[in-house]
C-alpha cells in the first residue's frame, strides 16, 4: 500500500527584515549625527585672520649687588677692638642697583648663627650709609640707616658695617665668637 504524505510549514513571522531596516535606519542616523557634529561650533560661518609681527616682550629684573656679588662676606673686621662699649667696623661696602628698575633698599633684622648666645645678646650690629667707615665714638650708640636707600638703575651707595659690644657685656663673652648676616631687601619702585 502506498501512502502519500506531505507537510506544510507556514512561514515564520519574519523578524530578520525588520532588524535589517532598523539597522539601516540606525546607520543613517549615526552618520547624520557625526556629519553634523563634525562641523559643530562653526556651522560654516566665515572667518578671516591676519598675522601681525609685534616682535617680542622681554621682562626686566630687580637686582642688587654688594661689592659686585649677591652675597658678600665682610672681611677684615678688627675684632681685637671689640671691647665693652667699643666697635669693630668694616671697610666701605658698595651697594649697586644692577637691575632694570629703581629699587628701595631696606634692612632686615640681623641674623645670628647662635642667637641665644651671650655674645649675640650683647652685640649691636648696624649698617649705616657713609662714604668712609669710622668707628662710632664711645658713648654714642651706633645706628643703622632708617630711611630706605633708593637707587636708580645702575646707581650705587656706600655703607659701613659696625658691630659694637655692649658696654655692660659680661666678662664671660671674652674670646667668644659668633657669626651673623645682615639681610638687605631691595624692592622695585616706580
Amino acid at each position: 500500500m502506498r501512502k502519500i504524505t506531505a507537510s506544510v510549514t507556514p512561514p515564520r513571522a519574519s523578524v530578520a527584515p525588520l532588524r535589517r531596516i532598523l539597522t539601516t535606519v540606525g546607520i543613517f542616523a549615526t552618520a547624520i549625527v557625526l556629519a553634523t557634529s563634525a562641523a559643530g561650533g562653526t556651522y560654516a560661518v566665515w572667518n578671516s585672520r591676519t598675522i601681525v609681527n609685534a616682535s617680542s616682550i622681554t621682562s626686566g629684573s630687580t637686582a642688587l649687588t654688594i661689592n659686585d656679588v649677591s652675597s658678600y662676606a665682610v672681611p677684615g673686621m678688627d675684632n681685637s677692638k671689640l671691647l665693652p662699649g667699643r666697635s669693630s667696623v668694616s671697610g666701605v661696602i658698595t651697594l649697586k642697583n644692577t637691575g632694570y628698575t629703581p629699587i628701595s633698599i631696606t634692612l632686615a633684622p640681623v641674623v645670628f648663627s647662635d642667637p641665644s648666645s651671650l655674645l649675640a645678646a650683647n652685640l649691636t650690629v648696624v649698617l649705616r650709609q657713609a662714604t668712609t667707615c669710622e668707628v662710632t665714638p664711645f658713648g654714642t650708640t651706633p645706628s643703622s640707616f632708617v630711611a630706605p636707600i633708593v637707587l636708580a638703575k645702575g646707581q650705587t651707595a656706600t655703607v659701613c658695617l659696625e658691630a659694637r659690644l655692649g658696654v655692660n657685656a659680661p666678662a664671660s663673652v671674652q674670646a667668644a665668637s659668633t657669626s651673623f648676616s645682615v639681610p638687605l631687601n631691595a624692592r622695585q619702585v616706580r
Partner: protein
Amino acid sequence: MNKLVKGAVATAAGVALLMGGAGTFALWNTSASVSAGAVASGTLTIATNGAGTWKDISADRTATAIPTISSWKIVPGDKLEFTQNINVVATGNNLLANLSYDPATIVAATGQASLDLKSKLVVTITATGTGVTTNATTGVITVAPSAATIPVAVKVTVELPSTVGDAVGESSIAQNGSVSLATLSLKLNQTR
C-alpha cells in the same frame, strides 16, 4: 455572455480608453520668464596695513613711543600698547563679525621665567573704525558691514600689573622672561 466574455470586453474597452489618451495629453500650457536679478555673496577679510608701533602707556609715565620693543624690559607696573592698522572688508547685508586676537599666538620662550611672564601678562584688545563698536561690558568688538573697505586701528595692550611679585614666594617671578608676539593673529569671525 458568460462572465469570461464580459470580462474580456470590459478589459478591451479599458485598454482602448487608455490608448486614446496616450502620447498627446494635449492640455494647454504656457510659460513666462521673470527677471529676478542675481544673488551675490558678501566678503569678510582682514589684512594688515603697514607695520605696527609700540608705545609705553604706563599710568605713571608720559606716553612715549618705543622704537625697538625687543630692547624694552617690561617690569611690574608697565603697560605697553601695540597699534596696528588693518583693513577690513565686510560686505553682506546681514553680516556681523567679531574682531579678536588669538591668545594661542602669544608664545612664551623656553624656561619657567618666560612661562611665568606669559601667565602674568594681561593682554587686551580695542579697535576703532567706522562701524566698529565695543561692548562696554564684555569687551567684544563687533564690525558692521560696509560697502567700502573699513580702516581699523587695533590696539593691543600688554600689561604686567604692579601686583606681580607681591605674593609670598613670588618676589622675583617672571624676571628675565621673554614672550613672542611675532605671529600675533588678529581674527574676524562672522557671528551673523
